[in-house]
């Protein structure tokens, strides 16, 4: 049941955006796809309602939150703080997601990762990235 509603709701939300589609010409194909999605979404929802399905297994929010947070932090920090500090923060947050390492070992790992990445991306591949923040 949960599955059905989830999938249905997810898909039903999609066509809302298709309102912003351009002229008839450009919008034709997306509308076609959206229409199909709505139809199938309804079908899935119906099927989900009919057979009282198994509930999906428990959701684990912590890894979900931390893993995505680390990517967002990367995006937010990179331009301000430079490559080294950003990566350190990202690696730290990422290791928190697993709750398997204590903070010292996580920091150590983060340090090693920063060095490895600097060596790989900046020295070996020669990408134009700033290592330290602009002062």
């Amino acid at each position, binding site marked *: 049941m949960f599955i059905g509603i989830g999938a249905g709701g997810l898909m039903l939300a999609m066509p809302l955006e298709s309102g912003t589609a351009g002229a008839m010409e450009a919008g034709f194909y997306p509308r076609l796809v959206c229409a199909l999605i709505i139809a199938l979404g309804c079908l899935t929802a119906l099927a989900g309602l009919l057979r009282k399905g198994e509930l999906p297994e428990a959701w684990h929010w912590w890894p979900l939150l931390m893993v995505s947070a680390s990517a967002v932090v990367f995006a937010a920090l990179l331009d301000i703080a430079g490559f080294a500090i950003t990566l350190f923060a990202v690696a730290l947050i990422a290791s928190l997601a697993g709750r398997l390492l204590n903070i010292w070992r996580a920091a150590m790992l983060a340090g090693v*990762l920063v060095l490895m990445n600097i060596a790989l991306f900046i020295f070996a591949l020669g990408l134009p990235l700033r290592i330290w923040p602009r002062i």
Partner: protein
Amino acid sequence: MHDLISNLAMGFGVALSLQNIGLCFIGCVLGTAIGVLPGIGPLPTVAMLLPFTFALDPTGALIMLAGVFYGAQYGGSTTAILARLPGETSSVVTCLDGYAMALKGQAGTALAIAAIGSVVAGMATTLLIAAAGPPLADVALLFQSADYVSVMLLGLVSAVVMAHGSVLKALLMILFGLLLGTVGTDVASGDYRLTMGLDMLADGLGFVPISMGLFGLAEIMVNLESMAGRTAIAKKVGSLWPSRAVLWQAFPAMVRGTVIGAAFGILPGGGPTIAAFSAYSVEKKVARDPSRFGQGAVEGVAAPEAANNAATQSCFIPMLCLGIPPNALMALMVGAMMVHGIQPGPSIITKQPELFWGMIASMAVGNVILVILNLPLIGIWVKLLQVPYAFLFPAIIVFCAVGTYTVDSSTGDVVLMAIFGVLGYVFRKLDCEPAPLMLGLVLGPLLEENFRRAMVLSDGDAMVFLHRPISLAFLVAAALLLAAVLLPSIRRGRQEAFRE
């Protein structure tokens, strides 16, 4: 025949250049190294390493990516045999008999059989591609837009059929992918579509952040919650050389596996996983004593390994010759080619023969490298298996973030990756497979373009798809497939096939 040899010679000339051998080697090493790590299959591996190849020339990049692909495929088998941890779904069946053999102290034999099976299959399929590619491309050159639309529909339909789980959900995922493919600037009118006013999306959704999010990050999130204890790893590898009797026993199974694998690889929506499963069940059927299977039967290792390797390579055929990826991984490869400014399709053979033949030859080279890598160096891979996940996944996350960023130097892409990571997690929780989405995303723009062109050519007459014989044939095939899944008896059979 003469052409074939001279073309292959040219291909080997390209593939055997120092740079390309090096790239193929690096690809195989990286692929194996990451493929050995539990829970990371070829898809996330290729997605993760994609950005590294952007600095290379197209041929080198593709050779390296292909190396990564079969390296990862192969690495998965190693863990399957030694630790009962399938690196990816296609080596699930190898676990059954491979691990049983390892427990009996025959891990070395199992590994060697897997390696030999892979090479036999790989070489045979390489020849098949070389022989079948050009004629197929000639046929494909006759295709018009309407025919392309129908081929792609067939491909999408069979992707649905072959997907695990609910047909409806797979269909929804494909449609979602198609929809995502429409984001960006409309080709014909230049209008922005579905960009929600964000300039970042004007070029369409980047294909790297999506695949990294869906397959890389989501994979980690799922793995983090199922961090149960690991199975004991078979420490003693034992003698690597199989006895002649064992080889004799395994050889027919390898041949059967190769044939099955090659066929399933070409089929749209197919690929290594189904090939391996089918090969295993065929072996079980033809065996004189089926009860041996699961207890360490050599054929149970040889056939699926040959099949998955054959499929790994033969799925390049539709991708290279028609420009239509048969599965999500090939969709990634198509994406990689497009990033390099190559439009995959039938003209690739005539326009870029070095690329085409170089890649084919590199498959043969890659197979040899893999054996060299895997048999003598098996100890290293076993060590790698013991790296705790706690150290591993932050490294993967950092790689994903940096990798995505470097493609376009865009922090927006990294956020996009995070969003798709979450989406990928949700999809997994809802039992929706992300692979069909990927296929939809890559095929979407192609499908739309050809669909529109066909409509323009026919003055908006939808019957054009039924009038052209090629198109009609594909549509009929697609309809038959769809009907077949909906029939209850076949549905049951399909469920059984996936349950094992």
